């Protein structure tokens, strides 16, 4: 990596150089993601050279290559890229809204609730039909998010109250989840825990198309989101003075963040840590002070894609969920960045 992280101390570089730097970082991240994607498209049981892999994506070349690349690998790679980007943006939105580096969609309980919903379907009703699990996850996640918002509402939703209500409700659901896991038969419990870690093993064109549509619909409003986010970071009063209608804006941003998370949880299970780590990593590379949605998206895409590739190769047979690796990869990278930062200052 040629881009060096800057100290965490919230210094404000002149806005032009910060802009250039952010653009550079986003470009480098996207190029890296593209390289990893091409590698992943080409490697596996059927080896395809990078050039042929790119041709095969567009349906040209050896039919066997086209089958492997287009039908087997492309959906998974696309899903990883898009879901990673959406999680990165969701995390950036939540961290900025709560002004807390630990802020992630998880504080509003979405993933925990989604896990509860899926566990109820998997372990209590005993069905493992993907559609049922998806519905359970969505219902559980959205229900929890709405409950957290309503319980935190009191003439507006203030960041601190949202955090406390979120962790309280999440703690209850986590307890319920571990009780369900504890009381289930061992094989079912392991299967459920695997779903809970988040895995791209079941990525098909069907699920991937859904993700593509969701990404198109949800990532477009994010272009609008940057401005109100910046204003809210200044504090409610100042944001209002700048002409922002604080509560509606915050509600819209929360809904956006929750929906971005929901796509991932509903399609592939709650993939952990991307939403938390990607914005932090991106911020350290760009040394920007605020929410960099674009950089967070690019970082999220790269982290999830690389993690999923690793998960497939570390343990053959595809039993290792990508979510287990995202946690390790994202975590180790963050550890390394922090370590360097600490040595420099």
């Amino acid at each position, binding site marked *: 990596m040629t881009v060096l992280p800057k100290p*965490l101390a919230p210094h404000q570089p002149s806005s032009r150089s910060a802009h250039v730097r952010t653009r550079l970082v986003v470009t480098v991240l996207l190029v890296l993601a593209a390289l990893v994607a091409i590698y992943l498209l080409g490697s596996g049981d059927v080896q395809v050279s990078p050039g042929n892999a790119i041709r095969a994506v567009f349906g040209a070349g050896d039919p066997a290559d086209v089958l492997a690349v287009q039908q087997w690998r492309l959906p998974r790679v696309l899903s990883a890229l898009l879901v990673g980007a959406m999680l990165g943006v969701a995390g950036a939105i939540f961290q900025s809204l709560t002004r*807390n*580096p*630990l802020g992630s969609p998880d*504080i509003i309980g979405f993933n925990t609730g989604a896990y509860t919903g899926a566990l109820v379907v998997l372990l209590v009703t005993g069905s493992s039909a993907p559609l049922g699990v998806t519905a359970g996850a969505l219902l559980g996640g959205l229900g929890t998010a709405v409950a957290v918002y309503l*319980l*935190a509402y*009191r003439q507006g939703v203030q960041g*601190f*109250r949202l*955090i*406390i*209500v979120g*962790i*309280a*409700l999440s*703690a*209850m659901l*986590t*307890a*319920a989840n*571990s*009780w369900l*896991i*504890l009381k289930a038969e*061992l*094989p079912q*419990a*392991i299967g459920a*825990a*695997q779903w809970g*870690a988040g895995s791209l093993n079941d990525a098909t064109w069907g699920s991937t198309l859904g993700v593509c549509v969701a990404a198109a619909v949800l990532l477009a409003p994010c272009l609008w989101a940057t401005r109100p986010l910046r204003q809210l970071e200044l504090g409610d009063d100042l944001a209002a003075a700048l002409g922002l209608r604080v509560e509606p804006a915050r509600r819209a941003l929360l809904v956006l963040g929750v929906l971005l998370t929901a796509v991932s949880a509903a399609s592939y299970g709650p993939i*952990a*840590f991307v939403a*938390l*780590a990607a914005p*932090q990593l991106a911020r350290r590379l760009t040394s920007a002070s605020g929410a960099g949605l674009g950089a967070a998206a690019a970082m999220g895409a790269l982290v999830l894609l690389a993690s999923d590739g690793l998960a497939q190769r570390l*343990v053959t047979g595809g*039993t*290792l*969920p990508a979510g*287990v*690796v*995202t*946690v*390790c990869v*994202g*975590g*180790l990278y*963050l*550890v390394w960045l*922090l*370590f360097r*930062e*600490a040595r420099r*200052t």
Partner: protein
Amino acid sequence: MLTAALAALLVVCVLSIAIGENLIGPAAVLRGLFAPPGSIEHNIVWASRVPRTVVGLVVGLALALAGGVIQALTRNPLADPGILGVNAGAAFVVAIGIAVLGVDRPIGYVWFALVGAAVTTVAVYAIGGGRGRATPVRLTLAGVALGAVLAGITQGITLLNPRAFDEFRAWSAGTLAGRYLDTVWQVLPFVVLGALLVAVLPRNLNGMAMGEDTATALGINVGRTRAGAVLAVTLLAGAATALAGPIAFVGLMVPHLARWLVGADQRWILAVSAVGGPMLVLLADVIGRVIIRPDEMPVSIVAAFVGAPVLIALVRRKGASGL
């Protein structure tokens, strides 16, 4: 206030000794406590009830104090004792103990958990910058990052090994059941040492709450305070986790409640937490024993269900303040 809280704690203690598989009245509890060895009452009270109550007291005290210190240190309302990686480290080493070394008794986990907690916190502290450089934000992020890595590996280990998964899911739902006094004696020195450290910290923590520069101006050694606080959290939370497994919510919730009750002075927050922690743990344990008889619900699960509604109700009140 503190007197009332102590009295309430005493009542909960008596309840915790009295209520169980067979109910014994408060008078019988007293008789059992002082009955000569060998009598039935003595056996019930001393062999099964008292050890559990003692474990609950120690665990609750340790978790609540650790939570109070870590919230004061990081000034982050999301911070719990687990934020320095204590739980993740303990769980990681326990998972290795189960999967690789084949340890299969709760007593065997104690030292694994302690070592895991200690090593992880030292690593987090070093990554966060060590003495003098570890800002609260960096310490928090380092703990979360390393904790996540360890949790991920733990998850990987257990997902690929059904036997380890089975053992681990039992350990990871923290419980007071099946712990004996010898285990308490093993970890008690750590708790005492941690509590003593906490006893000398509050004045400095109060100063640090005003920001590091102000603290320095007040003559507080910021680096040393931070190191002491991290050490105290490790000792307390590590010991509690070793004793009962991870109990997440107590250390997070009790200091918040204490702060809303008594204001921003760390001395009072920690004092009230020291009473409130054991109370929540023991109460949750008693409820867990009776709620689904003859089965038992682990204390960590009940504590979340008892504590969370209280926390939500209180944060909706007007005076609930941030850090």
